[in-house]
């Protein structure tokens, strides 16, 4: 027990050092790519609180990502003075949207939940696409003006890739710490029991809908964190942020990495970008290759890449221990 805890601490430390050192050794584009991976990692982690831990497959999660992106972008386009405050307001807007959508959606299960969230997501998509006077319609809100970070007198040039990398890294680490804490809390255990057996949980006195809603809103909140950061990163909010294909991305990443391992979605995000980056480098028929890689991954890694590797390692270790005995 103690040994494994020490190993984990060591691993976390190594990851932190790597995160801190990387931007000084890789090129500008790699810095931006890692920044994007971290943002999408936050998005996928938020999605997985709902999917992996509560057992609800949301296919409209891009709505919260997008709502936050739009609110953040809207504020910044109108010369809002503080970046952090804009991000906070965007995220709160996402959480608010999650309360509304969640209130209705958590009544349903499984595929019906997935399709209903898809429907709600596309309603938000339609809204930003059609409301030209406020959202810019199909053109979106573009050309954000980035104010300084807005912490006291500390002025950081947010538009520099390196400093934005560190801002995102801070959000990334905070998200991981908070979500990790949540899934290991009493609340998290209740979510897991709802995932495992909704009926049993209800007859144990657990108000399924209330817990699911709480999970939905927390998840929407963090999707909002990611969405706001993404808008700042791309200097824009565009309707494509809310389209169902955008909702499919965290699903893809999570299942790729492994839904039942906390860091699965992050590994999935890394894999996803890596695969895409490599493929688009040598061909523009990237879809066929992405599909051709995705299919065997799904077939041969039933718990996602990280999940399956961890299960396998565990099994090997158990086999070795049995051999010793």
């Amino acid at each position, binding site marked *: 027990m103690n040994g494994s805890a020490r190993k984990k601490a060591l691993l976390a430390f190594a990851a932190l050092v790597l995160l801190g050192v990387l931007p000084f050794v890789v090129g500008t584009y790699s810095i*931006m790519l890692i920044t994007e991976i971290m943002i999408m990692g936050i998005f996928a982690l938020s999605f997985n609180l709902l999917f992996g831990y509560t057992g609800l497959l949301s296919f409209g999660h891009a709505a919260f990502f997008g709502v936050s992106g739009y609110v953040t972008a809207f504020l910044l386009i109108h010369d809002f003075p503080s970046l952090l405050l804009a991000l906070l307001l965007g995220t709160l807007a996402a959480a608010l949207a999650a309360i509304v959508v969640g209130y209705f959606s958590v009544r349903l299960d499984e595929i019906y939940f997935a399709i209903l969230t898809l429907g709600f997501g596309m309603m938000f998509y339609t809204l930003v696409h059609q409301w030209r006077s406020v959202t810019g319609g199909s053109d979106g809100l*573009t050309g954000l003006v980035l104010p300084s970070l807005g912490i006291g007198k500390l002025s950081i040039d947010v538009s520099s890739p390196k400093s934005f990398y560190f801002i995102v890294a801070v959000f990334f680490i905070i998200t991981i710490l908070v979500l990790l804490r949540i899934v290991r809390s009493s609340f998290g255990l209740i979510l897991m029991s709802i995932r495992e057996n909704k009926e049993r949980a209800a007859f144990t006195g657990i108000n399924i809908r209330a817990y699911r809603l709480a999970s939905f809103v927390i998840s929407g909140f963090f999707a909002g964190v990611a969405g706001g950061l993404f808008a700042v990163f*791309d200097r824009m909010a565009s309707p494509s942020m809310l389209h169902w294909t955008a909702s499919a991305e965290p699903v893809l990443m999570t299942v790729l990495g492994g839904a039942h391992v906390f860091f699965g979605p992050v590994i999935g995000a890394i894999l996803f970008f890596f695969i895409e980056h490599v493929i688009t480098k040598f061909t523009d028929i990237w879809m066929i290759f992405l599909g051709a890689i995705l299919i065997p991954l799904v077939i041969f890694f039933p718990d996602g890449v990280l999940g399956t590797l961890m299960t396998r390692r565990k099994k090997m270790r158990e086999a070795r221990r049995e051999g010793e005995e």
Partner: protein
Amino acid sequence: MKGAGFAKRGLVWGTLFTVILVLSLGGVAQAKKPIKIGSVYILSGFAATYGKFAKNGLTLAVEEINKAGGVLGRPFKVTFEDSRAKPPVALRAFRKLVFEEKVDALIGLDSSGVALSVVPVLKELKTPLIITHAATPDVTGKKCNKYAFRVSANLSQNVQVAARIAAKTGARKWTTIGPDYAFGHQTWEYFQKYLKKLNPKVAFMTTTAFPKIATEDYTPYITTIMNAKPDGVIISLWSGDLINFIRQAKKLGFFKGQFKVLMTLGAATEVLYALKDQMPTGIWVGTRYWFLANNSAVNKKFIKAYKRKYHVYPSYNAQNAYAAAYVLKAAIEKAGKVDKEAIVKALEGLEIEVPVGKIKIRAGDHQALLDVSWGKTAADPKYPIRILKPIVTFKGSEITPKVSETGCKR
């Protein structure tokens, strides 16, 4: 039979010879550091054919330029990326091209939404971009900046011509069918503004149709518009949507002549090749380049080379991308060095002849002044597709709003 076999063999050897020649020439050119161009178009999904034509046009131009000794003795080298018609994807591609591939200039963009998202970021990328398709007036208007240039006709130029033609038709009551995004709505807004100025007596109907992009079934929109009994309809659909619309509309008797029909992007060979003789005749169609609109040597050479390489006539998108490569070449030669800021300086006010005609890039807003042709669709047995007859051409200087009117402030 034997002759054919011989000819075939000749072709094989000929091709092989050319390949070896090109490779060895390329080898010589390789010795010099290439000038890198990054290019982003829609290469997958519903509008992939537009990106494909642009890619072909650009590739052809680069081959020609390199064969003729390159630019300042250095060859062009193009890296293509897929925008997937999504702004975030396009922006990522741009960043990759600038920061990783270290390109010297950028050429591309089909979608206006993508262009509007990417253009403001050019200030950070500090790399000149030549836009060849995206038509939103804003990238050389309200959102113009130092690094963004456009060599293709924009929406306001094209619709200005549409309004002039509309005014001549005598039709009084106008409506529209356009895609339900900025392009469709802006086309209608500009059309009303321009036509009202030319003929204050015209009326614009409240019954309009804006089907969403990638609508499968246009029949309800078609019947609704027909039922409203307009005198004229301006249609700004494009891509597969335009094909769907035309086929379904034709069956419903839309082109029977009860009202005038104008299609702002009807003369796209991407569409005409798909429709062939299904394209109705006698319809006013607009374009950003029409291969039969002028007889200049530059145009003839381009058509011939394009047809030989790709076996079809070039589309406006192919020409625009082709032209962009020559524009860039001219700018670099004018600047005398491969330096981004110098290229930007050189592009401003640049005058050059490309297949579409003589164009001039205005220093004020970076929009090219170029002639815009419209025409009526007609059948001609010499061509596999519908062509335009008659063709009317409007001078770029007449149809382009003054810089002060574009909203461009730099």
